[in-house]
């Protein structure tokens, strides 16, 4: 008897996200075809990607669909399942055994199987030996315990006839992204068509899930991504002092394709970014893992306290000593912002570090990356006071009418 696994669908219901995977694509030009796993086509985990919303699937039984082919006409029914082939070997005894277990648990949380196993069920084969797509429930899934991540799930597929022993017949590997919620704009789930470039991109999820790995809430994920975006300076991106702080990647829409190329070591659109670029990168990548951030501005024309612009190690009002005519003021500034993008809402700023000590106007400086920091009113010691000088704060006001989520291309 020869049984083969033909294909697996993770996203078998494009209209829902509570029991199956999200609608995704690879990038601006490439789609993720369903079935995601196909015999002879899918070799590596990344050949078979699927993304799940932790919040939307919570309390639901996850399901997949699989299609099989059987060459023995004498057999019409088989019981089929898939198990996780990774077995934790027994560790050493005593204290080192506990450490061993902790390390193993951490490795599994970061990179291991989150979908659990495919629960056994009977599959009936038609006269042509093909089962058609059959729905399987998943059991022992850990999606809701491990937070955001991009992990590999490996399954060993097994069958048996009657109550006999299980026989292995296939092994599949899958890249499974777990995100906090269905990604909001600029990402969308509908329409689920090839032309919809706002379906979440796996090339964005590869980075965003790694940056926000193991986080379990939106603020934690946004904070982690803020740190990682700021940390791209100066080797990948740096503040555009010479160009007057002009927008490069997020002019109109967001040239996410170029930014990804830059992340992968290519030229992209070059090294220079400004606040709009940073807010857009941060907001777009954070929202890909289910955060709910806006890109929004404050202004207009306000004097700056000393800061560390992205890529810079020099405390000064932005680019003041660069020799490119900077006056120590911003005409506007843009950040990733929560809620209504107002005074009482928190900002995430991947473009600069402010002085976090009691006097942000002068040395000594205590670098503080603004993550989940309330914008605030003058004199409250929050984001506004740390960014703008005492005289500049009156002109540094939220401009919530500018809030947007730039479309990706």
């Amino acid at each position, binding site marked *: 008897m020869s049984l083969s696994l033909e294909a697996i669908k993770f996203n078998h219901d494009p209209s829902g996200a509570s029991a199956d995977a999200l609608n995704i694509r690879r990038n601006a030009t490439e789609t993720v075809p369903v079935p995601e796993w196909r015999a002879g086509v899918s070799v590596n985990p990344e050949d078979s990607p699927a993304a799940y919303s932790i919040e939307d699937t919570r309390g639901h039984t996850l399901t997949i669909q699989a299609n099989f082919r059987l060459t023995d006409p004498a057999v019409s029914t088989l019981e089929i399942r898939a198990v996780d082939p990774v077995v934790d070997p027994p560790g050493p005894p005593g204290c080192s055994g506990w450490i061993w277990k902790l390390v193993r648990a951490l490795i599994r949380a970061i990179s291991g199987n989150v979908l659990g196993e495919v629960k056994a069920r009977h599959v009936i084969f038609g006269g042509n030996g093909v089962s058609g797509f059959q729905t399987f429930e998943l059991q022992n899934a850990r999606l809701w315990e491990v937070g955001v991540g991009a992990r590999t799930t490996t399954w060993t597929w097994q069958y048996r006839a009657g109550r006999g022993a299980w026989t292995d017949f296939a092994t599949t590997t899958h890249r499974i992204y777990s995100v906090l919620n269905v990604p909001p704009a600029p990402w969308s789930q509908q329409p689920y068509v090839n032309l919809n470039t706002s379906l979440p991109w796996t090339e964005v999820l590869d980075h965003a899930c790694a940056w926000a790995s193991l986080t379990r809430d939106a603020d934690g994920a946004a904070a982690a991504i803020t740190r990682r975006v700021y940390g791209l300076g100066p080797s990948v991106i740096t503040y555009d002092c010479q160009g*007057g702080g002009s927008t490069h990647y997020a002019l109109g829409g967001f040239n996410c394709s170029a930014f990804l190329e830059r992340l992968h070591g290519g030229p992209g659109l070059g090294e220079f970014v400004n606040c709009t670029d940073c807010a857009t990168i941060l907001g777009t990548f954070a929202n890909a893992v289910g955060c709910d951030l806006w890109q929004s501005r404050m202004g207009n024309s306000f004097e700056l306290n000393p800061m560390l612009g992205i890529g810079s190690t020099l405390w000064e009002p932005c680019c003041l000593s660069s020799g490119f005519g900077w006056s120590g003021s911003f005409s506007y500034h843009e950040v990733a912002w929560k809620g209504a993008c107002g005074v009482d809402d928190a900002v995430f700023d991947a473009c600069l570090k402010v002085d976090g000590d009691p006097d942000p106007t002068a040395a000594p400086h205590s670098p503080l990356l603004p993550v989940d920091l309330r914008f605030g009113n003058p004199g409250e010691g929050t984001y506004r006071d740390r960014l703008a000088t005492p005289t500049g704060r009156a002109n540094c006001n939220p401009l919530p009418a500018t809030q947007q989520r730039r479309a990706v291309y």
Partner: protein
Amino acid sequence: MKGNEERLAALGRELAFGEWANRAAAERVFVWRFFFAGGELPGWRLHRAYRMPAAGGLPPGVQAVWTRDDGALLQVDAFEAPSAAEARQALLQIAGEHQAVGAVSRAPDGVGEVAVAGPRETTLALVRGNLVLQVRNAGGSRETVRPYARQLDALVAGDAEALKRASVTVRRTEVPRDQLDAVARRVRAASDQAPDQAWFRFRTTTGEVVLQDGRPVFRAGAGGESAAAGPVILEAVRPAATGATGLDLGGLGLEP
């Protein structure tokens, strides 16, 4: 861009936007389906060009990155506005996408119909007809970008020397104004079949060509020019680098 009106109004005053917002050039140029083929900037290599969708109040266009042997990068954004007036509005918006106070000023004449420049002309944005070109250092260099902006502007304007330098061929035909709609439909159909093989330039001295419902149409000026006021010049600009073989403009007088 919504919410930036106050700041852009102030910037417009600084740049005397009111003086040039609607000032028509002697010859009105309308560029359609512009793209970069690779030969436009001698000494530079076109690394990649991206199609930019219309977004954030800016028209659609092409965003290109050029590399040079010394490691320098040049970013060129070309926005294709529906009309010359909207191109100038887009130029103001682009000028407003600088965080530094006073970073942008009117560039001296000699490039574009109107242009603005950033510090030491390391960035320069210009308008030629309905096209907005922004040229910027993107790494590895602090030089002025004016020479490159001028080269691209001359190419768009149809300067013979620039066309030769960029290895492009131009075929020209005269289109009676009352036939422009039919000709534009045919050019669009041919270009849809063979995209990025040629871009098109319309020239008029009275009235103007604008984009309406996705195709160029003639719009009379305040003087209400009649159909007898003279033809529109239509040019197909074919960069040699494209190999341009599939574009069928048969019968329009634009054949190679």
